[in-house]
C-alpha cells in the first residue's frame, strides 16, 4: 500500500540539500540553553549538580559563540532555516558579525555571573530555580541576537522577559516586588508597541523574515514606513531604557540579588539597542533616515541625562543603573550616525558595555557585601579594608568612562570619528560630554566608597567599623570572578585589533546587508 505521505509534492517548499553539522553553530547557543534549563528544572532538588550543570552549559554556549564568531569572521554571515522549509516560509536564524559578537559578549558575562552567584544565591533561591532561569534568560538573549525573523525576535523577547520576571522577584522581598511591577509594566507596554509594529509591517509587506523584508520594505509608501519605523523605535527605545522612557531601569535594577542586577544591566538593555539597530538599519533604512533627527535627539538626551542621574544618586546600584542608560545613549548615537563608523562603533560599544557594566555591578556587589548596605554615604573606608577591590573598581571607572587604554575608549573613538566625518557636531559634543560626566559620576562613587575614611560626616581617622571582611567563599567566587572579568576587559582593551576588524565587518554588513540576505536565501538561489 502506497503511503499517502509519498504522494505529496514537497520539493518546492523544502530545502533539498544536506545541512552540514557545522552550520548548527547558529542554533547551539539557544538549543543548549533550552536543554540546560529543562534539565536543571528536573534536577531542582540537587544543589551541587545545579551549579555544575549550569556552568557546563553556559561554558558550552560560550564555546559555540566563539566558534560562531570565528565562522562569521572567515566566511561571512551564516544562516539556517528551521525545519527544512525554504525561507521566508521557515523561521530563519541568521548571524552576521553584529549578532555573533553581541551573543558572545552576553554569554561570557553570564558565565562569570554563574560563578559569582555561588557567593550569594541561597538554597531557597536555588529551589525556585535561579540557574534554570539564568539559562532561559541567556537563551532568550542569544535567540534575540541570532534570529533572522522579526516575529521570532518578539518570541525571544518574551522568553527573556518571562525569565527576567522570575529572576527579579526571586527572594520575594517587598522592594523586589515593587521593582518588578515597574519593570514588568513598562516592558509589557514596550512589547505591545513592538507587536503592533510587527503587525503593521506584516500587513504592509506580507513577510517577517529580515532578509526578505530588507528587499521588500523599500517599496513601502513613505507615511506607512515612517509610522512603522517610529513604532519600532519607540518600542526598542523603551526596552533599551533610552530617554524619555528610561525611568523604569534605575527604579528596578537595584532590587534583586546582585548577580541578577549584573545580568540585567549587562544584557537586557543591549537587546533593545540591538533590535533597534537591526530593524532600522536592515529592514527600514529609509525610515531610519527620516527619523534621524529624532534618534539623534534621543541619543543626546540619553547620553547626558544618564551620567547626570548617576551623579545625583546615593544608592550605588541605582547610580550604576544610570550609567547603563548613558551607554545606551552612545549606542543610539551610533544608530543616528548610521555610517560605517557609527554602526561599527555602536557594535563595539555594546560589546564593551555588556562586559564592563556586568563587571561594574559585580564589583559593586562585593562592596555591598563588605558594607552591608547599598548607600554610598555609609560605605567609606573600603580602600583600607580591601585594596585589590579598589584597584579593580578604579579600572572599571576608567573603562566605563572610556579612558584609554581600556576597552571603553576604542568604541568611543570610532563613534567620535564617525560623528566628525558626518559633520554631526552635536553628537560629537554629546559623546565627549558623556565620557566626562561618566568619569565624574563613576569616580565620585569610587572616591566616596574607597577614599573617604568612614561614613559621610565622620571626621575621625578611625577605620569604618561597619565594614566586615569577606568570607572565604566570597573571596573565591565574588571577588575572584570579578577580577577575571576585569582582566578580560583590560586584555581586550590592550589588544583591540580583532575587535576593530570585527566591528568593521559588523558595520559593513549592516549598511549593505547583501551578504546577510544571500546567506539566508542561499538555498532559494541555488541553481
Amino acid at each position, binding site marked *: 500500500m502506497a503511503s499517502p505521505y509519498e504522494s505529496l509534492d514537497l520539493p518546492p517548499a523544502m530545502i533539498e540539500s544536506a545541512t552540514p*553539522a557545522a552550520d548548527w553553530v547558529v542554533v547551539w547557543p539557544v538549543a543548549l540553553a533550552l*536543554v540546560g534549563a529543562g534539565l536543571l528544572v528536573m534536577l531542582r532538588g540537587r544543589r551541587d549538580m545545579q551549579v555544575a550543570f549550569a556552568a557546563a552549559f553556559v561554558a558550552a554556549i560560550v564555546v559555540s559563540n566563539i566558534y560562531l564568531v570565528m565562522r562569521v569572521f572567515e566566511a561571512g554571515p551564516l544562516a539556517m532555516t528551521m525545519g527544512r522549509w525554504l525561507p521566508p516560509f521557515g523561521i530563519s536564524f541568521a548571524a552576521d558579525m553584529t549578532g555573533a559578537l553581541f551573543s558572545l559578549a552576553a554569554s561570557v558575562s553570564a558565565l562569570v555571573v554563574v560563578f559569582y552567584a555561588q557567593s550569594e544565591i541561597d538554597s531557597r533561591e536555588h529551589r525556585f530555580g535561579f540557574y534554570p532561569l539564568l539559562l532561559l534568560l541567556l537563551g532568550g538573549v542569544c535567540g534575540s541576537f541570532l534570529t533572522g525573523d522579526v516575529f521570532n525576535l518578539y518570541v525571544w523577547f518574551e522568553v527573556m522577559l518571562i525569565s527576567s520576571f522570575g529572576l527579579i522577584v526571586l527572594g520575594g522581598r517587598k522592594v523586589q516586588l515593587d521593582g518588578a511591577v515597574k519593570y514588568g509594566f513598562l516592558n509589557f507596554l514596550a512589547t505591545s508597541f513592538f507587536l503592533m509594529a510587527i503587525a503593521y509591517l506584516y500587513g504592509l509587506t506580507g513577510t517577517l523574515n529580515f532578509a526578505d523584508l530588507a528587499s521588500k520594505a523599500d517599496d513601502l509608501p513613505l507615511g506607512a514606513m515612517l509610522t512603522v519605523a517610529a513604532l519600532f523605535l519607540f518600542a526598542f527605545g523603551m526596552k533599551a531604557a533610552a530617554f524619555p522612557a528610561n525611568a523604569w531601569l534605575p527604579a528596578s535594577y537595584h532590587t534583586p540579588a546582585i548577580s541578577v542586577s549584573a545580568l540585567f544591566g549587562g544584557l537586557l538593555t543591549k537587546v533593545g539597542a540591538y533590535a533597534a539597530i537591526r530593524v532600522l538599519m536592515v529592514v527600514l533604512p529609509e525610515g531610519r533616515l527620516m527619523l534621524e533627527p529624532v534618534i539623534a535627539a534621543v541619543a543626546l538626551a540619553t547620553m547626558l541625562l544618564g551620567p547626570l542621574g548617576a551623579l545625583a544618586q546615593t544608592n550605588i546600584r541605582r547610580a550604576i543603573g544610570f550609567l547603563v542608560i548613558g551607554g545606551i545613549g552612545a549606542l543610539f548615537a551610533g544608530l543616528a550616525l548610521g555610517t560605517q563608523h557609527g554602526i561599527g562603533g555602536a557594535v563595539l560599544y555594546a560589546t564593551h558595555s555588556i562586559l564592563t557594566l556586568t563587571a561594574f555591578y559585580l564589583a559593586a556587589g562585593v562592596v555591598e557585601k563588605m558594607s552591608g548596605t547599598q548607600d554610598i554615604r555609609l560605605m567609606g573606608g573600603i580602600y583600607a579594608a580591601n585594596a585589590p577591590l579598589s584597584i579593580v573598581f578604579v579600572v572599571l571607572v576608567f573603562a566605563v568612562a572610556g579612558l584609554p587604554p581600556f576597552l571603553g575608549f576604542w568604541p568611543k573613538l570610532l563613534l567620535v570619528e564617525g560623528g566628525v566625518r558626518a559633520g554631526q557636531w552635536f553628537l560629537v559634543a554629546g559623546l565627549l560630554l558623556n565620557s566626562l560626566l561618566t568619569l565624574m559620576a563613576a569616580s565620585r562613587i569610587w572616591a566616596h566608597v574607597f577614599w573617604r575614611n568612614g561614613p559621610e560626616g565622620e571626621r575621625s581617622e578611625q577605620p569604618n567599623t561597619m565594614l566586615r571582611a569577606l568570607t572565604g567563599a566570597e573571596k573565591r567566587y565574588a571577588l575572584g570572578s570579578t577580577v577575571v572579568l576585569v582582566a578580560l576587559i583590560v586584555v581586550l582593551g590592550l589588544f583591540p585589533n580583532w575587535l576593530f576588524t570585527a566591528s568593521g565587518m559588523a558595520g559593513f554588513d549592516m549598511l549593505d546587508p547583501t551578504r546577510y540576505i544571500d546567506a539566508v536565501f542561499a538555498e532559494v538561489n541555488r541553481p
Partner: protein
Amino acid sequence: MNTVIFRTVAPGIAALMLVFSIFVLLRGHNEPGGGFIGGLIGASGLAVYGIACGVAEVRRAMVIHPIVLAGFGVFIATLAGLMPLFVDAPFLTGLWWIFELEGQEIALSTPLIFDIGVYAVVVGAVATIALTLENDEEHY
C-alpha cells in the same frame, strides 16, 4: 466545593480528562488537537481533582513535582529538535518513521516527541500554578 457528590465523581472526571487529554495530544498532528490543548485539558483534570480532594492528595498522586514535568517537557522538545542533526537536516526538521502494524498505519515522528514535550510543559506549568492557587497554607 466540599459536597459529597463532587468528591465522589471528581476522581472519575479527573481520570476521564487525563485520558481524553492524551487522546487529544495524539490525534493532534493532522486533526484538531495537539500538545497545547491536550496539556490544558490534562491540567484542568488535575485542578478538578485538587479542588475536590485537596492539593496534598494531588501532589501525592503525581509523585513528581509538576514543575519537574514542565522541565522534562522543555528538555525532550528541544531534544526532538536536535534529532535532525544526525541526518544533515536543519534544527527542528520533522523526521518520520512510518510502519504498518496489523494492517494499521502508524506514524511516529519527532514532531510527536515535540508535541509530547509541549504537553508536559503545559500540564506541568499550569498544574503548578493551579495547585499553588488552590493551596491555602504556605507550602512550597
